[in-house]
């Protein structure tokens, strides 16, 4: 099938793998119907639909905050209406690979904080890398987590190379955000262009609240009764992700608390309610380790709860994600994750890493510095796309700066091969153009590890750009996982 419709008139494939179109211009089978539907739409109509969604998002307050020079600007969540589609079989592989990876990461965290540290003594991960990590948290030692679910909610960023092969770009094991947008994107799509769903069976995404609540109930401490009291701890209404915090509280039917609402007495956490103090069993916290407890960490923080660490130690409350997860999503530890999988699970990694050079290995460093203009240089402790130098797009001054920074503090940098992210059609002006994108699926661990169907697809703002972070102006797409049709007779 070829594409002739107006919206596709000027479509020129970008470099790398196109999710919908083969290199000869034909449409991949799982995109055929959607492409056909979009051929019947003209740009004005699509613009109007986008307007409908934007109004809806604005009225519902589906926003995020961008910080620029310390000034917060509230933006409406950007969504492009051309969906990203993943076939059932492909998703199965991703699902298995994601579970495998998160299981290994959880084993590593358990091993490190409540076990013997076997991976360190066996040399799977260099001890000095672990102990010099900003995310390494001595206070986490000895704090038991039910089912070893240190990372209860993980967001794993996946990209596809030129051949369409998936790889893990980054693990987010502390406070990965974005799940609310997955759910709201779908709701908006169903409102704006319901007809494109007609020919597909798409896995629903409404069940996230139930899944999360189930996982949170599973990790309640033994002191909790049958229906544990769960709360979400938010930094408050001014936080960039406040919408998501409120969304999660609503979809789980639990209280959204701030630090000031909780109080610790005799190593038990209580919520200050109108009926006095009521004990709390599980805290899904959306604040960083450093602000959790002003007694143990950042003393000036008013976001946390004094005495919370003591309660965690006493085992009267479970805090999710657990303390100290930052060590495992440190980009300097990332190169060792495939080895963790082999070590703990005795399996070959299903999802590979992006090829990465560590700067504390002289050979790797020499090679990387030599080809820095072809590689991506990343600071290990930043997130949100900050501080990244993309070699092919960087000026000589930027590259020189990166070289100098690496020489000064090799521990602080990793260098990776450029992944020519895959691309997909997005509406730009009056026609569809390819934009690069990634995928952040969410992996939940309670009694068992489960992958939420789909995930957040983030797209770059400009043609050719490889930066997809919403804080850098990127957008998003609804992500469809097609249901497995093998059991349904035609």
């Amino acid at each position, binding site marked *: 099938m070829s594409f002739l419709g107006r919206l596709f008139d000027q479509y020129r494939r970008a470099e790398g793998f196109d999710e919908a179109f083969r290199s000869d211009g034909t449409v991949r089978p799982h995109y055929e119907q959607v492409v056909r539907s979009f051929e019947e739409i003209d740009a004005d109509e699509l613009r109007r639909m986008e307007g409908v969604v934007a109004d809806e998002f604005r009225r519902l307050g589906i926003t995020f905050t961008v910080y620029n020079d310390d000034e917060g600007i509230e933006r409406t969540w950007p969504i492009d209406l051309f969906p990203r589609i993943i076939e059932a079989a492909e998703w199965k592989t991703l699902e298995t690979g994601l579970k495998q990876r998160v299981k290994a990461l959880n084993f590593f965290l358990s091993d490190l904080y409540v076990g013997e540290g076997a991976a360190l003594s066996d040399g799977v991960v260099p001890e000095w890398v672990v102990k010099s990590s900003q995310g390494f948290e001595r206070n986490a030692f000895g704090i038991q987590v039910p089912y070893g679910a240190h990372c209860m909610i993980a967001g794993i960023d996946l990209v596809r190379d030129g051949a369409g092969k998936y790889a893990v770009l980054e693990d987010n094991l502390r406070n990965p955000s974005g799940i609310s947008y997955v759910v709201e994107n779908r709701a908006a799509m169903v409102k704006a262009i319901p007809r494109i769903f007609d020919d597909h069976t798409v896995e629903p995404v409404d069940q996230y609240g139930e899944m999360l609540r189930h996982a949170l109930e599973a990790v309640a401490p033994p002191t909790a009764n049958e229906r544990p*009291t769960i709360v979400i701890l938010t930094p408050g209404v001014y936080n960039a992700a406040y919408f998501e*915090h409120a969304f*999660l509280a609503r979809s789980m039917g639990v*209280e959204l608390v701030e630090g000031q*609402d909780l109080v*610790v007495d*005799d190593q038990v956490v209580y919520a200050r309610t*109108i009926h006095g103090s009521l004990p709390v069993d599980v805290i899904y916290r959306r604040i960083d380790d450093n602000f959790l407890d002003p007694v143990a960490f950042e003393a000036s923080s008013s976001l946390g709860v004094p005495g919370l660490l003591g309660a965690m*130690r006493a085992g009267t409350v479970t805090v999710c994600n657990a303390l100290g997860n930052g060590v495992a999503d440190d980009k300097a530890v990332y190169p060792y994750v495939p080895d963790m999988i082999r070590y703990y699970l005795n399996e070959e990694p299903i999802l590979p890493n992006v090829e990465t050079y560590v700067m504390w290995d002289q050979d790797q460093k020499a090679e990387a510095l030599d080809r820095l203009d072809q590689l991506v240089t990343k600071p290990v402790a930043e997130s949100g796309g900050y501080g990244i130098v993309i070699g092919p797009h960087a000026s000589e001054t930027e590259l020189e700066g990166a070289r100098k920074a690496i020489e000064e503090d090799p521990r602080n940098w990793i260098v990776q091969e450029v992944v020519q992210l895959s691309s997909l059609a997005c509406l730009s002006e009056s026609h569809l153009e390819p934009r690069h994108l990634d995928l952040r699926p969410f992996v939940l661990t309670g009694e068992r590890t489960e992958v939420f169907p789909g995930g957040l697809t983030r797209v770059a703002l400009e043609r050719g750009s490889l930066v997809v972070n919403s804080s850098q102006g990127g957008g998003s797409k609804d992500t469809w996982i097609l249901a497995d049709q093998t059991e349904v007779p035609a």
Partner: protein
Amino acid sequence: MILARHAESLYWTGRYLERAEVTSRWLDVASRFNAHVLPEDGAAEWQGLMRALGAPLLGADLGDGAFDQAAVSTLLLADPSTVGSVSSAIEALRDNLRVVRDRVPVELWEEVNRLHFGLEQSATASRQDRAHHHFSRTVREGCQAISGVLSESMMRDEGHAFIVIGQMIERSILTVGLLRSALTNTVTSFDSDRVLRSSSALQSYRRLHGHRATSQSVTSFLLRTPELPRSVLSCLLNAERRLNVVDPGSQRTAQTRRLAGRIRSGLEFGDFDLDFDDRIISLLTDLQQDLWRLGDTLSSEIFRPLGEPLLHAQYIRPGLER
């Protein structure tokens, strides 16, 4: 379970919702009546309205102009920085609701946002017309939509109860303020039609008492008619019912309930007709103060029982015996 902080936000949501709606209604009624008085009297009338609302008269930037409908409209409607303006009430309503948006129906948050975004447009239209009609209508329709969601979509739980308690307390305070302002008006004599219309009670009054209206009968009607949803007595009865939802055993709201009961029985059984003209102003003054105190008592009993300074003072060192 409901957090004390959330309960407080819901309570203020109710208060600001009521305030926004009442203020815009009063302005509409005032415009209608003040169009028929002499300009110099009109200014005094507008000042009376500002006073009844508790809006500050000093420091308000009126330029050269005196109090007239355009100036007051600008101040009381569209200026979010004027304390007591409709805009400020809606902003405060939204700020409070944002804190609890996870526990109220999505439609409620949506309606409040719609109103918030609609105000900007209406303010422009009103400025162009030099009339606040657009603006008032947006506010009233918005408030009615919000009330509709509250009544049809929200579970009658503690959260709902706190919104209603807030509405009832605000409504009764404003009704008493309206009566006081009308009874102490030095420019024109007590205008029963205007007072009744301001309380959305004109029709009801006429059905019951026809066109015979005195300051005494109107005052009594607005204070003590249990069937009239805007009467102070009705508000108190409603608030007491909601307190029962919040705290059935009356364990944590004893003072609030005692005070509410005392005010309510004063209205039910008090002799307002005795020496009406001499005593009514001081009675209303006392009543208004009692109503203010009712809000404060609720706050100190339920919302902030430990007091703000104690909030973060309870430091417990991990692992230390106490």
